[in-house]
């Protein structure tokens, strides 16, 4: 297990390099003078000159990239052209909000999606299975941001039960978490169902049943654990959609997270913040995939020895 973790950690290094390369070229792909673009349209000659120096734009590209890498490693992501604060200071509080939202959505999706998938698999082709399958399909076809708007109309405008948006306490988290969870919930339910059905057809389930194990125990003890692996895969695969979804969900509910910061920075052409936010999103995604792979290895010993 330990060896596997080390191997997996080493394999992320080239990916991290690739990410840094892409972000490095992101700013350089912009038309015009990068220093001018980064400093913003209203910057003075002196500020532009300062940034040009900072980035080493008069030096060869590989020196520029090396400088960029050194700065990233030192957590120096530059200065926001909008607020003049360091980008890391802008990002840190919002990152926490996004992580809270993403975690709430993931937990919600698991708590509802896994049982729904199990029930559907245990009673296949019944009404309840049809309902779960249909809901899952709907959830996967619905644009989350639209679902968010509809939830606001129902629960905030009509019923006046929950706040339209903003942040404060747990009440503010309910609608955004449901909105963000919808897609993941749907795919978890779908995949739990098919994984569970496959497991229930296995010989060892028949054996357990014929031993006289109660059906509830067959499902919880024997079937559930073996159907976890495909479910973990889905969570890992769909976590990217979830992170992408935070951008839209946060915009709908004015949730002060990283996604909303990214959008407002794109609209304001605040490139240092754009670069920083995308970097953090990519790191979050790489990190989750790492965790998913570790969980894999934990649940399925075969993975460790491939």
């Amino acid at each position, binding site marked *: 297990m330990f060896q596997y973790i080390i191997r997996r950690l080493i394999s992320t290094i080239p990916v991290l390099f690739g990410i840094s390369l892409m972000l490095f070229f992101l700013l350089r792909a912009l038309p015009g003078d990068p220093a001018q673009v980064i400093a913003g349209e209203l910057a003075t000659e002196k500020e532009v000159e300062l940034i040009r120096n900072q980035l080493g734009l008069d030096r060869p590209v590989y020196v520029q990239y090396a400088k960029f890498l050194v700065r990233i490693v030192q957590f120096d992501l530059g200065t926001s052209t909008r607020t003049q604060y360091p980008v890391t200071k802008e990002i840190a509080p919002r990152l926490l909000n996004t992580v809270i939202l993403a975690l709430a959505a993931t937990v919600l999706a698991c708590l509802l999606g896994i049982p729904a998938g199990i029930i559907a698999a245990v009673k296949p082709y019944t009404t309840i299975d049809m309902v779960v399958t249909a809901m899952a399909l709907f959830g996967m076809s619905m*644009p989350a*941001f639209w679902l968010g*708007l509809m939830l606001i*109309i129902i629960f905030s405008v009509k019923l006046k039960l929950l706040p339209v948006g903003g942040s404060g306490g747990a009440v503010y988290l309910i609608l955004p978490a449901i909105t963000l969870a919808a897609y993941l919930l749907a795919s978890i339910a779908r995949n739990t169902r098919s994984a569970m059905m496959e497991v229930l057809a296995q010989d060892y389930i028949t054996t357990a049943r014929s031993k006289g194990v109660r059906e509830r125990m067959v499902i919880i003890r024997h079937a559930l654990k073996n159907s976890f692996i495909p479910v973990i895969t889905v969570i890992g695969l769909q976590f990217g959609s*979830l992170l*992408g979804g935070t951008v839209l969900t946060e915009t709908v509910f004015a949730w002060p997270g990283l996604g909303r910061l990214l*959008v407002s920075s794109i609209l304001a052409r605040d490139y240092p913040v754009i670069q920083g936010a995308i970097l953090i999103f990519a790191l979050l995604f790489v990190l989750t995939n790492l965790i998913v792979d570790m969980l894999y290895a934990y649940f399925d010993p075969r993975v460790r020895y491939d």
Partner: protein
Amino acid sequence: MTDHPAKTAAAPESTGQEYGHWRIGLAKLLRNKAACFGAVVILIFILASFLAPVFYAKDPNAQDIRHALEPPSLQRPLGTDELGRSILMRIIYGGRISLAISISAVVLALLVGVPFGLISGYFGGKIDFIIQRVTDVMLSFPPFLLALALVSVLGVGLKNTIISVGIAGIPHTIRITRGCVLSIREQVYVEAARAVGTRDGVILFRHILPNVMVPIIVNATLFLGMAIIFAAGLGFLGVGVQPPAPEWGTMLGAGRSLLFAAPHVATFPGIAIFLVVLGFNLLGDGLRDALDPRLGYE
């Protein structure tokens, strides 16, 4: 795994095998009610957006402030928006934009992703290593965020929406194509072709490509729906297709500030997106069940 459509219908060693396979697939697809429903929904949207000028000669962007924010009525079935424009007509005209974006983006992803996937899987070695590391990096960005990052560099608008969404779909296309090629590369007929001295290009396009088409088509169909959601998401955030163009996501974005005064403005464009994406998802699932013999037992 009781029936083997490819095998039972096959006249061995002839192209008839493929035709038989596709025909049986089509028959299966037509028996799948959900997939047919999906196809019909998509057809209705395509027809409506093509025929839009026939039954609505007015410019869908023309404003009529006197009728602003009217709720749905017999005269204006889905009501009007803040500038008095018919929401129904804007949705129908917007279908052209959404479908055009999604089809173009998928074509872009296929044109780049399939050749790279074929080369990567077939030749292996160094070139495979390089292509796969680049794919790894692209996949380490959540797809929608990749599109968003590209838009932030390229700028807003229709063309850049297509490019960004298309590029976001490339890495998955490469992965899927490569995976299929890997399993087919070692088949006897490929080895035979190589043994008689067939050139690599011919092997790739004549012998391998037709056999990896099914998963590519299935995924392209599912990606058509995803692309519509991505494009609408960009429009909703204000960085996609720009107003006054009646793009569905842009319309939703405009409706966001009217949730209290006129909830119908944000409701209907979302239903349109939902229906079309549902259509593509149902069709994609149906195609997979019908065409992929490995899933024959489902």
